[in-house]
């Protein structure tokens, strides 16, 4: 039957169907393009109409009359039941909220809530499985307005399979609950990318938290590089040295990048007791990036204990140039202990090394 189909009118029929489908898809594409342009046009026309009205309202009631709550929203005569109007109003309010701080900022947030956006956001987060973006946006709104969310909903969001929702929930907790939420956040953090880690880091450092919490307790070699990096970045930001935990990570050697980061943290946190161990590690180590990190860390420690090692590396012509560069940089960082060594090197060196030294010392060279 199949054979007779293809020997008869089968092929032309298939091509006809394909042709009609292509035509239909093409028409759909054109309609799609038109819809995008129409939506854009509609948004812009609403924005142009609503912006002056809302701006004047904010100036009059928030900035001049100092109204804190119970805003006469009905005077705006905006149809907030319309989705497009709500979208535009929300956008405009966001713009103002980000530029107005202090007491007035709080009034702005009250205005936002009185317009019913907090309820809308609360509704959205209850339907998180369907609308990832809406949930993330709502969580960000609720964090901005400092609105509390019911614990069972929050638990559900923190356990969401979508990483975007989880990260938004972590950020919400940081912004609303601050330090109290750290245990809850760090105990459940998983599956995040480096960018998510950076996002959470930024959320924490932008709060007014001053840093008595021990982030190092969460370091664990079984966790991913992104998660451990987050803790180490926070340790560095809040200057919390915990050599023991950092060395555990280094010795576990699960991920090279984690080890690199841990050595970097040791240097930035001035782990002076670690210098000998770092020297030993340098001799054992084969990876160039790790070696560079060790030399940089030793330079930061600046105790003058490793001058011989740094001098040897710099003098070693077989060594990679970048390693020699960093060795010299670290020698400079060891001043005043390294002053005589640097003077000796300056006098001894050949023309090529001299070029290298002058390059490193050049005031216009900023990156290495």
């Amino acid at each position, binding site marked *: 039957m199949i054979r007779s189909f293809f020997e008869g009118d089968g*092929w*032309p029929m298939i*091509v*006809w169907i*394909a*042709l009609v489908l*292509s*035509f239909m*898809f*093409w028409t759909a*594409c*054109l309609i*799609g*393009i038109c819809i*995008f*342009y129409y939506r*854009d046009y509609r948004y812009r026309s609403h924005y142009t109409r609503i912006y002056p009205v809302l701006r004047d309202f904010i100036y009059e009631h928030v900035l001049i009359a100092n109204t804190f709550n119970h805003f006469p929203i009905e005077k705006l005569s905006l149809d907030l039941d319309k989705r497009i109007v709500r979208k535009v109003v929300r956008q405009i309010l966001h713009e103002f909220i980000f530029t107005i701080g202090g007491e007035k900022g709080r009034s702005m947030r009250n205005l936002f809530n009185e317009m019913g956006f907090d309820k809308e956001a609360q509704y959205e987060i209850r339907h998180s499985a369907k609308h*990832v*973006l809406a949930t*993330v*946006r709502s969580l960000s709104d609720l964090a901005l307005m400092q609105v509390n969310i019911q614990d069972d909903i929050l638990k559900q969001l923190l356990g969401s399979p979508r990483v*975007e929702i989880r990260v*938004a929930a972590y950020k919400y907790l940081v912004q609303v609950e601050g330090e109290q939420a750290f245990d809850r956040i760090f105990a459940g953090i998983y599956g995040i*990318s*480096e*960018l*998510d880690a*950076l*996002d959470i*880091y*930024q959320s924490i450092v932008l709060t007014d938290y001053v840093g008595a919490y021990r982030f190092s307790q969460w370091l664990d070699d079984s966790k991913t590089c992104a998660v451990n990096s987050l803790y180490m*970045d926070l340790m560095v930001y809040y200057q919390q040295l915990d050599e023991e935990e950092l060395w555990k990570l280094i010795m576990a050697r699960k991920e090279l990048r984690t080890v690199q980061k841990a050595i970097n943290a040791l240097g930035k946190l001035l782990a002076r007791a670690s210098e000998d161990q770092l020297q030993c590690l340098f001799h054992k180590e084969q990876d160039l*990036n790790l070696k560079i990190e060790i030399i940089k860390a030793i330079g930061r420690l600046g105790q003058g204990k490793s001058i011989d090692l740094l001098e040897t590396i710099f003098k070693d012509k077989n060594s*990679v*140039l*970048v390693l020699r560069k960093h060795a010299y940089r670290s020698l400079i960082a060891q001043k005043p202990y390294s002053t005589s060594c640097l003077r000796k090197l300056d006098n001894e060196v050949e023309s*090529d090394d001299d*070029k*290298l030294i*002058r*390059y490193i010392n*050049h005031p*216009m*060279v*900023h*990156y*290495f």
Partner: protein
Amino acid sequence: MKHFIFSIEFIFGLYCLLLLIVYMMLFRMSSISIKKNLRKRNSRRIQTLLESEIAPGVSIVAPAYNESVTIVNNVRSLMTLFYPRYEVVIVNDGSKDDTLQKLIQEFDLVEVDFLVDYMVPCKEIKAIYKSRDISHKRLTIVDKVNGGSKADAVNAGINVASFPYILNTDVDCVLANDTLVHLMEAVLDAKERVIAVGATLRMSNSSYVDSGMLVEAALPKPILARFQEMEYIRSYLLGKMGWNYLNCIPNVSGGLGLFDKEILIAAGGYDSQSLGEDMEMVTRMCMTMCENDEKYEVKYIPQTLCWTEGPDSLKMLTRQRIRWARGLMQIIRSHRKAFLNPKYKRFGLIVFPYNAIFEFLAPIMEILGIFFYVYLILTNGINWQMAILLLVFVYMFSIFLTSFSILLDNYVYKYYKRRQDIVRLCLTAFIEPFLYHPIIVYSSIKGYVQELFGKKHAWGEMKRKGTLSPLPSDGTKK
């Protein structure tokens, strides 16, 4: 004889069917890929990376050869990108005009002592310049002996670059201010190590640029540039975003590509002998990762981040496409060991075979197909009804794919503010198969023939028309 003709028909039919299936897959995969990308992008504030003091550093490497007309504005454009940690390395590849003098004068440059580690091969670096002005501390100018290729100049830039990521771009390209943020977001948001990231490129021929920054994107007026704009949109949004879904991107464009410097160096840097140096580089990077049994990703993002001046004369366009065709042929020949080799995983089993069968062979199949068609007409062996039906279908399908790419482009962002631009672009899709496509096929075949007979390639110079010059101070558009 009848069996022979049937066999040929069968081969052509199978080839077309496979191509159709690939396009349908790309249609689906690109939609998913773009949707996913936009969801991620919209769920995060762009300021996160922008405000972060721990963002990884990026070195922008841009080679310049006889770019005197536009160099100052273009360097200024690169210096105004939004990103917390980056440097700009401009490589003056032995320009014969006053490119270097203009840079020295404009940016108050002085020669500094240097010692370069030639980690990747390049011609001798004569001097390195830095600016006395602290506001230009990010700028480094490398003056080197002309190496006869862009690859050699980029290698020099890589040797001088300080940061772990390299953004390779052309100095005449106009980049969006948030280029580095978008590209680095793609790097930091990946599960595996990202060795290269690319973004969409389009034509700047009729766009309005002020002080090296794009003010308004407009559809190119010259018809050849307009065809290329359409081709780029289709190739990036449908092709590369589709392959992005499978982590099977074959190429990151030389106009804009972010690379992991460590892998770039481990793979040996750009090959100055290759005519398709960008694709060849990505090929070698992927193969290096596979040989070391390391997982990796090559990513693409749908946002247009780079505007470049496309060739608007037939001569320049064919010369460019001949070079691309020869480059592709060189890659297929020199890396043939990867073909269907399981050692190279998805690169050897999907990317390379796709390139060989559907990119390299496509123009040859097309030409052979036309000859076969003519033969059938002459021998009266054609079923006219079916032939016309097939032609109409192929024509309609190609218009649909182009329109779909335009739709995706609008979904990502509405770059054209004027409605007539989008209407014109949609209409261009109707004439492209008759006017533009034959030029591309002809150039490819010519490139293959030249490569086969070992003809020496002349790079030639693309004359800059300075369409990227600033607007008059009163703000009136050109």
